[in-house]
């Protein structure tokens, strides 16, 4: 954690004098201390274990986002407003909560679908059109996120994250 924060500091700072660097060190230590006190430094809060597979997922998601954007833009501009709002109830196949959150946020991040409720291994999705929801229901994103999480779990520890 400290490493990530230190990296962030260095990226932000742009001043590499001893004084500022020592301030940076103090800051990182202070933040870690407070974060420990807040109890936010667990797997959920610090998804380092997703590192290796993460960029790949991002790239895939970015493409999805672009596609979804174009789709929604088309719907917005077409005079007939071709939308058919529909709710979908989907199962989440990720074992951990972190995975479920990534899944839910990914759904929201792609325009055309918004996750409305995430609970009990199910996510309720509002789709701008029925076919958009159906394509989400095919489960590609679900599987990719599940794989992402699983890779992280395997990489770090055999113990499954809290259920």
């Amino acid at each position, binding site marked *: 954690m400290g490493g990530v924060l230190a990296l962030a500091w260095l990226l932000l700072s742009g001043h590499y004098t001893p004084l500022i660097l020592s301030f940076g060190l103090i800051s990182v230590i202070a*933040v870690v201390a407070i974060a420990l006190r*807040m109890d936010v430094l667990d797997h959920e809060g*610090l998804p380092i274990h997703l590192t290796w597979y993460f960029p790949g997922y991002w790239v895939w998601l970015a493409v999805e986002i672009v596609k979804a954007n174009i789709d929604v833009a088309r719907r917005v501009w077409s005079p007939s407003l071709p939308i058919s709002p529909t709710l979908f109830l989907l199962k989440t196949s990720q074992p951990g909560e972190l995975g479920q*959150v990534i899944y839910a946020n990914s759904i929201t991040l792609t325009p055309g679908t918004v*996750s409305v409720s995430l609970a009990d291994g199910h996510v309720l999705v509002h789709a701008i059109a029925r076919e958009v929801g159906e394509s989400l229901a095919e489960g590609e994103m679900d599987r990719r996120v599940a794989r992402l999480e699983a890779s992280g779990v395997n990489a770090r520890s055999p113990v499954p994250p809290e259920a």
Partner: protein
Amino acid sequence: MTHHLVLRVIAKLLIPFIMLFGLYVQFHGDFGPGGGFQAGVIFASAFILYALVFGVDVARKVAPDWAVRTCIALGALIYGGTGLVSIFRGGNYLDYSVLSADPVAGQHLGILVIEVGVGVTVASVMMAIFFGFAGRGR
């Protein structure tokens, strides 16, 4: 039933970085605009987010009232006390050029220190206000 999952996870992710960002602004204050005041606001907003997501009672355990109060006072003391130090070093009140042998370095040092005072006070005052309002009901 789980707690508000999405918020909790994202908050855990964001909070340390917000705090770090606050400290970054704090110590880079005399290079850009802002300084202590903004830094205080940012730092406090991390706590406010924490309190919003995890509840004020939990946040109060992390930052107890006495600590917040002490920080308010300490920040103000740092701010005003620096001025007093300049009096004892032969300058006028708030005249930081006497804080160091080199007047410019003295000015820098003075501003840096009082910005810390401002930041600490602003952050803790904001937290105190939020804790004070939250949980009182509409």
